[in-house]
């Protein structure tokens, strides 16, 4: 398997053959006119205390995977094994006890905090679902959680709009932690933050992971942030994972032409390394009714006939490295 397994009981979360196709309805009768294949056969494993980075451009399906794992969306096909149990077929009632174990942090924490509730009340809600009935106990726990994310406990009585973006993200993290989860889906958690605040939040997430043994699915379009955060990285393009490898392996020996293009497109903060090589041409195509064969064929510099004919399978090039391209494998 991709990652060395520290614990004896396998990955915390195993995703197998996950598919989510959204129907596109048009016209008066709202007939289905096509399908957006947002997630089209994805396999990944997430291990305890580790971070899986999911990177790709807008519309590649990375956020959809996060929502499928949390059962905020129902997959069309595939399995989501959490601690060995398949949760993909479970009803919302059955999955309820598991909700505590899986939480999400969003890009815009303001959109996810109720503006009419104080920060303390928002965090307390999580504690109620955890079954903490004693009011005093909840108050103490709220203070602890706020302190844990670096916010003064007195802030519990303030409303979300009274905080800056970075502080709101800290509050979002405190609320996610309130139910003592094992897995947190971080969906672009630092993308909306200023550079000086971004590093504070990244450090906080890392520190909490070390302290609480959290497992992260870290979704981002920023290869630098993903490279810093992740143990394993999956590169997505139009619903497919194109390359999946241990982080160092992926950054040191990228194989897929898309990974190469993505890495070379990131502007380096060093004026001596200005990009001279040609960049990837064309736009990310729409996920609506993609052509048969490799999803990257339209922009790929190595494209050949075979890429257009049939779907490309995943090649295991080394124990820690998978790539969905027959030309480089």
């Amino acid at each position, binding site marked *: 398997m991709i990652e060395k397994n520290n614990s004896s009981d396998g990955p915390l979360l195993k995703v197998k053959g996950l598919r989510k196709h959204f129907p596109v309805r048009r016209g008066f009768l709202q007939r289905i006119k096509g399908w957006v294949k947002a997630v089209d056969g994805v396999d990944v494993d997430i291990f305890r205390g580790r971070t899986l980075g999911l990177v790709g*451009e*807008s519309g590649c399906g990375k956020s959809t995977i996060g929502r499928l794992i949390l059962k905020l969306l129902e997959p069309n096909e595939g399995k989501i094994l959490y601690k060995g149990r398949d949760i993909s077929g479970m009803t919302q009632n059955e999955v309820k006890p598991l909700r505590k174990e899986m939480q999400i942090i969003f890009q815009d924490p303001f959109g996810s905090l109720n503006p009419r509730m104080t920060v303390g009340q928002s965090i307390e809600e999580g504690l109620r679902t955890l079954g903490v009935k004693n009011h005093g106990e909840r108050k103490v726990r709220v203070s602890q959680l706020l302190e844990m994310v670096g916010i003064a406990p007195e802030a519990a009585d303030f409303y979300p709009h009274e905080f*800056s973006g*970075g*502080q709101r993200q800290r509050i979002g993290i405190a609320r996610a932690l309130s139910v003592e989860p094992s897995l947190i889906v971080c969906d672009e958690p630092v993308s909306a933050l*200023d*550079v*000086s*605040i*971004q*590093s*504070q939040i*990244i*450090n906080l997430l*890392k520190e909490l992971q070390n302290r609480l043994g959290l497992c992260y699915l870290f979704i981002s*379009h920023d*290869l*630098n*942030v*993903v*490279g*810093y*955060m*992740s143990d394993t990285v999956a590169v997505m393009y139009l619903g497919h994972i194109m390359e999946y490898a241990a*982080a*160092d392996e992926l*950054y040191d020996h990228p194989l897929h032409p898309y990974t190469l*293009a*993505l890495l*070379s*497109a*990131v*502007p*380096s*903060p*060093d*004026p*001596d*390394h*200005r*990009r001279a090589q040609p*960049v*990837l*041409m064309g*736009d*990310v195509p729409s996920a609506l009714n993609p052509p048969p064969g490799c999803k990257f064929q339209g922009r790929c510099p190595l494209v050949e006939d075979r890429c257009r004919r049939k779907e490309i399978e995943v090649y295991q090039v080394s124990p820690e490295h998978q790539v969905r391209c027959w030309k480089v494998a």
Partner: protein
Amino acid sequence: MMLSIQDLKVYFFSDGRVARALDGVSYEARKGETVCLVGESGCGKTVSVLTILRILPQPPGRIMGGKVLFNGQNLLDLNEEEMQKIRGRRIAMIFQEPMTSLNPVFTIEDQIEEAILVHEKVDIEEARQRCIQLLKDVGIPSPEERLRDYPHQLSGGQRQRVMIAMALACNPEIVIADEPTTALDVTIQAQILNLFRELKQKREMSLLYITHDLGVVANIADRVYVMYAGVIAEQGEVAHIFHHPRHPYTQGLLASLPNRVKRGKTLHSIPGTVPNPAYKPEGCPFHPRCPDVIGTCRVQFPEMCDYGGGHLSRCPVLYER
């Protein structure tokens, strides 16, 4: 000097408070040069360009002092009619979100031609030909067919190319671009940055580029101004700023950039948050977050210190060390 902003002060008055958005800012762009203004949200980057173009909302904003010299002429002295001859024609602007700057009910052709016809006496056929040529220049495939498209029919990257074509329509002497690639995917951003570089060489125009992304700055800038809380913290050639930063803020920003080489180590971070412009600290605005703070920083506004070669930094503490 193509564009020179001198000691510009812009304050915002609301709720009985004064927010000093620009507190004596000076910067300049020479002919054919790419100048980057870099800083975090609320540092005054955008306010400064709105002031240059005289589209600052007044009130609540008010220009309290300073000059905006464009080829020696102070734009702040011009009336609206005179300003219209400069805005869009000699100084063009590109915004972050192309969809909000393009009119959704007009075609691409209408919008680019309008930019030409407003400023120049040409007939419609010539305007149309210029329009096609511009779309070609900014790398839009089969431009003749795109002319009749509406903005929603284009992708984000193509919309930004159309915005650039509009900005270039009257051969401006300087283009001001405010975070033009922030909303774009990284591969599209790389295309647009290449386009800027190419156009700048071909047209000998100046580019004033505003961004918060230090990677973009390193890739495109000739010279850089680092802004913090309404003042210029540091300025200099791009290599000086990135290889020998002389201001604790610049040093902190560069050190806090994550990348995979730093994994496993705690990332450097600047403590605290950007101050609210209405409650700026006394003395150096950066002092509450500064690792090198000494007593005088808390009371005395720091002077610019000259490191030679156009490299200036507003931190006497590091200068004297």
